């Protein structure tokens, strides 16, 4: 889970279609800068392009099973499978 805001600029992200070291390389639609989760660092780092060296903050999320999550969080919303 990452912020999409860097120094006040809001961006949107997508998969570039590349992987590096078995990790997806992301890019932003606005400038086509390349974003990557550097090993040992929190958040995404812009490794090339307009936003080079900037960071997108990371927020904690949980990888778990649906039943487990739902039982702990009875009000949870669920991403619709038809989302585009």
């Amino acid at each position, binding site marked *: *889970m*990452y*912020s*999409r*805001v860097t120094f006040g600029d*809001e961006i*949107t*992200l*997508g*998969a*570039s*279609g*590349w*992987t*590096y*070291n*078995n*990790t*997806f*390389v*992301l*890019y932003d639609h606005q400038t*086509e800068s*390349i974003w*990557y989760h*550097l090993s040992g660092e929190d958040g*995404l*780092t812009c*490794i*090339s*392009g307009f936003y*080079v060296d900037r960071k*997108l903050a990371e*927020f904690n*999320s*949980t*990888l*778990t*099973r*649906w*039943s487990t*999550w*739902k039982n702990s*969080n*009875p*009000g*949870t*919303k*669920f*991403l*619709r*499978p*038809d*989302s*585009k």
Partner: protein
Amino acid sequence: MKFFKTIMIFAAAVMVFGCEQESPNEPFGGFPIIRTDGKILIEDQTGKRWDITEAVNKYGFDPEKFQFGVGPNAIPPIMNPRFYNPGETGYPGNGNFQVIGYERNGETRAYSLNKMVSHEVANEVFQDQQIAVAY
């Protein structure tokens, strides 16, 4: 996690290769690298060129280690995520499938991995926060 990601993107690569038998590129490297005007560009399977100058010169990335290059449309991100509320038709009952769970100020949302692997990224606004769910 990483292994599963690799499997999924490999599947996407196979789909693309299935349509382009003549493609000279290999999914694990051998993509054209263009060095011009002090810039380093790498060309993916769709012909799109990506500027990786700083990734190489500053962050030490090896251009030969960029893989798949299936293009940005192969795994389209979610731009307008919608959600089921509890009790709503379509809201899943109990299930053992994997989800990414996120909580903010007491509000919680879940994203199934099954859905996320085909998009990789969901761009959304959660309360006042612009976030990207990335798997």
